[in-house]
């Protein structure tokens, strides 16, 4: 009964530990995602000359889309923008300026956004390259992006991303090591069983099977439960954030781990802990097999 309680306790601790590792990876991923969203306010605007044709616009858009770092390209028609602008001014619009005057003020614009995974330095480089290419095009009047703004936040952005990765790695290594140590202690507790099995003629491979089967079941169940718990917590948090207007944007930006990310973390945890357990069983077998008669 005592041993059963200890196994349950060990199971809970291992599951919680894996939960913390997955949560930290998820937090890191979403921190990067949110930083990406914050960067979204810095887009590139390409103002076209007044006489640019629809064909010119399509050529330019095709040229921009060739860049694999580009997430989206939006074209703003001056007439549609003008209508929106006029509507926002409501009854005051007619007294301020004529429609034609307004159209002259608003150029045709292409807005470019980059992938969220890019950090500020990378965004700055991509935008600079794009700007150099586009400025040479005859139909482009002006290209603008927040170069100075980028430079200001570049260092903070780098620190936040590096710190996030560093904290995740520290958590991953220390928790994996902690789990491996707990399982090691559990296997060491099985010293007497190893002796008896050896006495009864169990082969080395059958003993690996006896002792690692437990670790395999233990670890697989813990991983499944921890993943399910993290997923539930994620959905709950996302829902809670979505109910408030202030945090709805954050809720939209939150993403769960992709299949590749989940598979990678499971593989890493599994390999790290299982290898450690295998080596523990191996050394325990080597030590106890020789002396188990007494």
């Amino acid at each position, binding site marked *: 009964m005592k*041993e059963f309680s200890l196994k349950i306790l060990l199971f809970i601790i291992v599951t919680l530990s894996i939960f913390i590792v997955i949560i930290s990876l998820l937090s890191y991923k979403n921190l990067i995602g949110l930083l990406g969203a914050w960067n979204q306010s810095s887009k590139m605007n390409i103002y076209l000359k007044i006489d640019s044709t629809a064909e010119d616009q399509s050529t330019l858009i095709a040229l921009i889309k060739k860049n694999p770092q580009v997430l989206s390209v939006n074209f703003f028609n001056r007439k549609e923008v003008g209508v929106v602008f006029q509507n926002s001014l409501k009854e005051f619009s007619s007294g301020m300026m004529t429609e034609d005057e307004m159209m002259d003020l608003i150029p045709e614009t292409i807005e470019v956004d980059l992938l969220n995974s890019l950090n500020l330095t990378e965004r700055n480089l991509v935008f600079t390259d794009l700007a150099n290419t586009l400025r040479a095009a005859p139909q482009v009047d002006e290209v603008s992006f927040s170069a100075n703004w980028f430079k200001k936040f570049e260092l903070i952005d780098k620190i936040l991303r590096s710190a996030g990765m560093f904290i995740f790695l520290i958590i991953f290594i220390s928790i994996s090591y902690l789990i491996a140590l707990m399982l090691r202690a559990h296997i060491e507790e099985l010293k*007497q*069983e190893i*002796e*008896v*099995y*050896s*006495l*009864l*003629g*169990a*082969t*080395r491979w*059958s003993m690996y099977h006896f002792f690692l089967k437990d670790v395999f079941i233990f670890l697989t169940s813990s991983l499944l439960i921890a993943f399910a718990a993290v997923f539930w917590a994620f959905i709950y948090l996302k829902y809670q954030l979505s109910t408030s207007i202030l945090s709805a944007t954050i809720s939209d930006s939150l993403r769960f781990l992709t299949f590749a990310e989940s598979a990678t973390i499971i593989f890493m945890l599994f390999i790290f802990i299982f290898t450690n357990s295998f080596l523990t069983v191996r050394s325990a077998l080597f030590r106890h097999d*020789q*002396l*188990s*008669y*007494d």
Partner: protein
Amino acid sequence: MIEFKHVYKTYAADRHSLRNVSFNIKKGEFVFLIGPSGAGKTSIFKLISAFDRASSGEISVLGHDLNKIRSGQIPFLRRKIGFVLQSYKLLKNKTVFENIELPLVVLEVSKDVRYKKTQAMIAQVGLSAVQDQYPDFLSGGEQQRVAIARALIHDPEIVIADEPTGNLDPELSQSILSLFFNFSKTGATFVVATHDYRLINKAGCRILKVEKGELTEDRIV
């Protein structure tokens, strides 16, 4: 079946556990290995079961030359031997039933056969009432019987019993020896180490006496 030829076991330059021990035990023999504590009885058992290797001399057990046996073959040799040790070596987290069926688990015997054989063995050693108990809740005599049942359940060719009655009263000791004698009729070879000479009263038994690592007596009662 078990043959020792001029066997020496030395742990340090000046510490000899066995000196020039030679004997031959045939199939179905019932042998008492006697001698005071520290005489070398356990060393002989360790050598027979390949838990240790001789410093010199030749040992052959069930056709295996133990000087040349590969580590991968040792488990298969041990499967043919039943062990009853002084310290019982019962698993505390397993019930009486589970402890007794362990050799069959190791031999990968099917569950149904395991159940039937274990139940029969439990009845034979008189442990039916406590088969679901854990070893810590059993008396010394009951634990000893569990160890004996575990040693016999897989029909071993050799049974090694190291002081099997060491912790038991005379009456229980006799009943356990009777159990051994009954089982030996199946053809198994028994080697029983004891320093309780009163137990050796069965006609036809062979006695090997070890003193200070040397075989000093080999006779039949």
